[in-house]
């Protein structure tokens, strides 16, 4: 008997295994487990079994049925999964085709440069304001300790509107306007266009952008200038860059300093970008000259401050590594889209 049961199970499993469709599988089920199926038929032969062996026989047949049932289910699931896979396979799309883009535009690299620089100063408590580009001689020069005939002013470099009015040559006149317009302390950053009468070439542009900064308060020191601008440089250019201050001259600051950062390209060894100096000049700065404070009615014994200014074109050109300023004003989309 046992042999017959085992043979039946054997047959049933192979039939299940070879069933390739749901129909074939159902057919196999009916043939084995159905009311007229082989296992049912086998069970009917119970009577011929020795009564003592009947429980064992029953258990054997039940085990065989469970086994076949399990196999049927497993095979059924496998076939379903295969069917599903086949269906999904036929739904495949070409994922390498371009997606549907909503085209977006870009901000001008100079706008981005101004944004990056001003954000750092905003975090240091400065407020960003703008000022007039058409300025008076008074604000652009005279109030900035640059009287007529001062060596630092040269008609050649300035666009004039008339004897009193000009296109500002620097963002510094906003130092004066800002101090005139508010009580100390003053902490402002002023980005904007400035004008110099230089014909356009690779390194000159009659219109360019500066960012001016001014901090005036009680007991502001040269050390504060050094600390603030060093912090700016480290944030903007990276913590590993070295910073140094060199004495320089601006009519409206004293002492005056230019700030250099170590050249990133050569690590200070000297290369074409840093003109083999290992340092790159980044900004001009200094303590606000007492004459400027006096001009706005601040008492230079009570109040001190520092100012700084940097050229945005230079910063952007250094950052992205191009050396023709004209690219910034051509508005060629192939250029603008790179930023």
């Amino acid at each position: 008997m046992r042999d017959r049961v085992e043979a039946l199970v054997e047959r049933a499993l192979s039939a299940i295994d070879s069933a390739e469709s749901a129909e074939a599988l159902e057919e196999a089920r009916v043939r084995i487990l159905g009311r007229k199926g082989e296992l049912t038929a086998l069970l009917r032969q119970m009577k011929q079994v020795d009564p003592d062996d009947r429980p064992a026989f029953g258990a054997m047949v039940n085990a065989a049925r469970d086994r076949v049932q399990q196999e049927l289910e497993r095979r059924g699931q496998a076939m379903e999964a295969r069917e599903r896979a086949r269906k999904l396979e036929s739904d495949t799309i070409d994922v390498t085709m371009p997606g549907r883009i909503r085209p977006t535009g870009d901000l001008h690299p100079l706008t981005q440069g101004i944004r990056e620089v001003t954000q750092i100063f905003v975090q240091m408590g400065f407020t960003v304001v703008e000022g007039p580009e058409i300025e008076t001689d008074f604000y652009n020069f005279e109030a900035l300790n640059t009287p007529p005939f001062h060596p630092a002013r040269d008609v050649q470099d300035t666009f004039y509107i008339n004897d009193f009015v000009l296109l500002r040559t620097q963002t510094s006149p906003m130092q004066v306007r800002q101090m005139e317009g508010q009580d100390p302390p003053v902490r402002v950053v002023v980005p904007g266009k400035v004008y110099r009468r230089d014909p356009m070439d690779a390194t000159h542009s009659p219109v360019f952008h500066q960012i001016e900064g001014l901090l005036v308060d009680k007991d502001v020191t040269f050390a504060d200038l050094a600390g603030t601008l060093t912090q700016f440089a480290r944030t903007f250019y990276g913590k590993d860059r070295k910073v140094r201050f060199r004495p320089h001259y601006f009519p409206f600051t004293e002492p005056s300093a230019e700030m250099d950062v170590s050249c990133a390209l050569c690590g200070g060894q000297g290369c074409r970008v840093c003109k083999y100096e290992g340092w790159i000049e980044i900004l001009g700065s200094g303590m606000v000259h007492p004459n400027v404070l006096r001009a706005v009615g601040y008492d230079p014994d009570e109040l001190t401050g520092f100012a700084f200014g940097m050229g945005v074109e230079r910063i952007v050109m250094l950052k992205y590594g191009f050396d023709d300023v004209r690219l910034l004003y051509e508005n060629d989309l192939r250029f603008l889209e790179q930023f």
Partner: protein
Amino acid sequence: MRVPLRWLKDYVDIELEPEQLADALTMSGTKVEGIDRVGSGLRRVTAGRAVSVTPHPKSDRLRIVILDIGPRQAPRRVVTAAGNVAEGCIVPVVLAGGSLVDGEVIGEVEFEGVRSEGMLLSAKELGVSEDNSGILLLPDSVKPGDDIVASLGLRDDVLELEITPNRPDCLCMVGVARELAAITRKELRMPARGCPESLQPARDLTKIVIEAPDLCFRYGARVIRHVRPGQSPIWMQARLSAAGIRPISAVVDVTNYVMLELNQPLHAFDYSRVAQHTIVVRRAQAGERLVTLDGSERELNTDMLLIGDAEKALAVAGVMGGLASEITENTDTVLLESACFAQQSVWRTSRTLRLRTEASSRFEKGLDPASVPPALDRAASLLSRMGAGEACSGIVDVYPSPEAPAVIETTDRWIERRLGAGLGADEIADCLTRLGFRVDTQGTPDGSAKIAVTVPSFRGDVREPIDLVEEVARIWGYNEVPATIPQGTDSGGYSDEYAFCEQVRQALAGAGGSEALTFPFMSETDFDMLGFAPDDPKREAIRVANPLVEEQSLMRTTMYPAMLAALKTNVNRRRRGVFLYEIGRTYAPTGAITAGIEPARGETPAVERPVLAGVMCGAGEGGTWYAPERQYDFYDAKGAIEGLCACLHIDGVTFSRAECPPFHPGRAAAIVWDGVRLGTVGQVHPLVAGSYQVPEATMLFEVDMALLMEAAQSPREYAPLPKYPAVERDVAMVLERDVASADVERTIRTAGGALVESVRLFDVYEGPQVGEGRRSLAFSITYQAADRTLTDAEVNQVHDAVRAALAQKLGAVLR
């Protein structure tokens, strides 16, 4: 300024390598922009004595020179074309395999069958001067085989310095040496000034009258007799050349040499040409004329200071001498001028005459009156040592009102408080003393020190205590000052205007626009090209008095020309689609500018309005696998504005047809919010497109940023979210073509009342099916109530009312 190091070493000991030296100068404020290694090209150059000079057998032009080039060297044979070499001459020679100052390598060459083992050199080939007329003949003191490159100073490192305008004292060798001495704690050696003088006193030979003491602070003169014509010594020529000054003649070279040494320009007059041997320093008379050294006749004005004699003008003071009194080969006696002129006078004169010289660029920065006599003495000493002239005794020196040296009083505490570093009175005094200041320190009961500083005459830039802070700091070392963060609790931020600009930029970038940046100029012809009427207020532009080019002669009153130019650039470069925008300013005059008067303090001279402008042209979206290519048209530009307004939450912006330049009369709209015109959007007029050479389908817009910002600031209110479902109904109709879509929408809203939640135009058709002059519009209307679910009957009722209104009010044929 160019500073040859060998020259500099005359005044200060230098132990540093040139690079270290450059660094030390740079870090104390005298920026070294480069080191020029002059004469580095010279190789295998030596001195030789011409033992014999014989004609070349085959060429009349060439000669063969046998040279003795030193005791342990075989004589060399050299072929030369120069005619000035005779037997016994000492000449410079480059041996075969060596090279000239410009690096050109000289090999052994055969000239018509005679081998030349080197080449005799001119002054130019050695780098001594520009003289290339013959072989440079060396003095007899030079021996064959001498290393003349070293002994004549032909090879040198020349520092290229950037001297800031406040430091004219550093425009000379002694000034730079003084800085170096201060930095490196060395002693400064002043140049030798003594010389034998003839018995005849200069004051018997010449007379000086200063008629304009406000413009001439000091005038000194020396009389030099028996000046020798010809060139200065080679070492002097080499130094002048290295410093960038062309050697000319012994006397002129000496004046230039002293100027470079002491920063005191000198001028040599031919004494015999000075009428009555009298110098008169005076203002020019109106229309007075003078032919200057450069040969051009100058008309002077009464603001200009001139040097005259008893009869006529001799020179423009501090700028340039006159041709008539110039020294020549025949000059025997020279009147040497050393003076101190008012810097503003020289500045103005030089610019009025458009004449800048080495002298004027020094005088206009302000010179030290104390340099007047030493410069004369030094020149006399050099001329005497060179055997180029004999000085008469003494100086004629007119110095009407000598100034006492300035004394600045401060305290160590005051200086330390400005610096933020406690370096102490001794350190402060040490820094200043090294720079040539006299420092008197006096303790006070509170422990601080009073410091009285006497400023040397050559440091006119140091006027008040803060100037001392810089002097101390730069000698002490800027980078020795600690870095601190200032006190203060202000929280930073952007001005509202700036923040708004950023918001608009971001919105337009999101809509596909790229930001342009253009120059804020335009020109008169732009107005015509844009089609502005002759009386258009935009023509009232601020004019630049000294523009670089005509196209940049006005401050723009509109951004359109700039936008069209930016478009043209991209079209010319075959860009398929362009959408550029910019937030720039337009400029209008104020009363002060129009009247040409000085604007009141605190006012801004012009009205500067921030304006958003944009241009669109060419392929818009599409041209992809999922969408066909579509050209930008009016509705793209309008959509950009609508999208921007949506982004800024500006509700109720309307567009109405506008006819204004530079637009197509039927394709432009005024952008209106709350009765205020914010700007204009439209397609350019075909004529404008033609003038600016851009495609006809070019869209432009301009929006006033201040007005837009006002609109964006209108308060926003929360509206409860709808609780009851909405019902959508469509309505399609045929209308006369000129019925505006906006009117249809308004009619729907009016008729539908509060139940109309939204109206959306979803189809437009024009064509044969609706007939000529008509078009079909289809709207989808959403009905919704805030307090209940609308019944079908309610919706039908209101929708019927809408349909009836459309038919009645607009003549719509409903479908």
